[in-house]
């Protein structure tokens, strides 16, 4: 049994079936394909996705335990992992047994988790500023064009741009709606063609897939 599961034909067969059902629903339609598509998306995908969230949480906690127990782990790392494990356990216990409406859960989320996440994200503006100073330079004509476009879009996005000169807004909007749009469309179409070619490679067994040794 284990040998069969290790072979690449089984996952390939599952991929073929899933792709055929989804494609058939889009291009052919009909009640058989519709009900097969619904079973695939409504039942299987939702169940797998929600279990994946639980498995993901368990994997993170398992990793913390392994790191704490490992003799080579530094004391500070052990403390950090222990702290992370403790907070996660506390949140899970309160969330599962008392619900997310519980004041303690709400407090932990609103006053510890929320500010921590937001702080990590906000710190980026400082790095962006130093990166802009070091890297955003007109080294050659294309980068000079990008620099000018970037500044114009910055001035379009900031209300102060309109106060300095009313022309910044329409110029910045033109760059966004015309220049960016045409480039965006090209990238979008290109990435979709790339995704299709990847799918074909997977279907004909040319791409390494799950289960393959």
């Amino acid at each position, binding site marked *: 049994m284990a040998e069969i599961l290790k072979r690449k034909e089984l996952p390939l067969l599952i991929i073929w079936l899933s792709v055929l059902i989804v494609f058939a629903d889009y291009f052919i339609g009909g009640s058989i394909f519709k009900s097969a598509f619904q079973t695939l998306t409504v039942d299987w995908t939702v169940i797998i996705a929600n279990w994946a969230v639980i498995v993901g949480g368990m994997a993170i906690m398992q990793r913390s335990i392994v790191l704490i127990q490992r003799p080579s782990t530094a004391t500070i790392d052990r403390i950090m992992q222990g702290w992370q494990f403790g907070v996660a356990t506390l949140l899970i216990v309160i969330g599962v047994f008392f619900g997310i409406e519980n004041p303690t859960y709400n407090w932990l989320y609103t006053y510890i988790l929320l500010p921590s996440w937001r702080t990590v994200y906000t710190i980026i503006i400082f790095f962006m500023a130093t990166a802009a100073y070091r890297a955003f330079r007109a080294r050659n004509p294309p980068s000079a064009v990008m620099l000018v476009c970037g500044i114009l879009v910055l001035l379009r996005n900031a209300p102060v741009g309109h106060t300095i000169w009313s022309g910044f807004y329409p110029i910045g909007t033109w760059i966004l709606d015309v220049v960016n*749009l045409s480039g965006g469309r090209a990238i979008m179409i290109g990435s979709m063609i790339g995704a299709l070619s990847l799918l074909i490679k997977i279907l004909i067994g040319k791409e390494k897939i799950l289960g393959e040794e």
Partner: protein
Amino acid sequence: MALAKIGYRKIIYLSVLLSALIPMLNPFGLPVEVSTQSKDLYNYIENLPPGANVAINFAGSAAMFPDSQAATRAVLKHLFSRPVHIVLWHSVTDGPLIFGNEMKYVNVGNKQYGVDYVYLPYSGGGESTLAAIAENIRGVYPTDERGTMLDDIPLMIDINRAEDFDLIIVLGDCGGATEYTVRQWTIAHGVPEGGTVCSITYPDLLPFWKTGAIVGMTNGVRGGGEYELLIKSPGPGLKNTDVLSSVHLLYIVIIIIGNVEFLWKKGGKS
């Protein structure tokens, strides 16, 4: 140049901090030009017929939500002031808590839970789950957030698939939700889409707005300020646009200094 010698990082960090703090404590009140995309979203919601069904995919997660928070709150205020029915679900784990905090600022008026609006819980799965909701809501959510069977909720009696909605709005999206809603709801089922998105995803979504797949959307903090102007309810969005202005101006100054230094060095070498 001189900046590098005295530790340019320290000076830049301090400048960024000050440029964000000063307008936060003392807003300038600079005028905000309302973009066509924000106006389009406002007009579309404003022109929805009474009794129209609006689906909301709440995709705001904690880290990035501040960027689209003001717009999300303003759109929620607008929707709850209109005679429309609202069915909302969450596509991110922390959605229910963030949404709960936002609703403290929204006046639901005479609307009744179960009759005019319904909240569904979080479900993982991203795009696949959204496709599943479009086919059969009860298959994904047999009950609402409070555990009531959907068949026992008056509003949900005639609602079970994408075609039962007049509009879907993705709130607080910062990565993918708006785009896959176009694929799974707008293209597949013909439901128009609107959204409040972060500035980083906004340029990627413009092609969809241009083709009409997205009827309108707001752009980050600025979009929040614009929407607050449209619904005539000033709030954090308009206040934060001043921060946006000063930090953006500082970035431009930093870029200019960097380039002057670069050209100076280049001239010296040649």
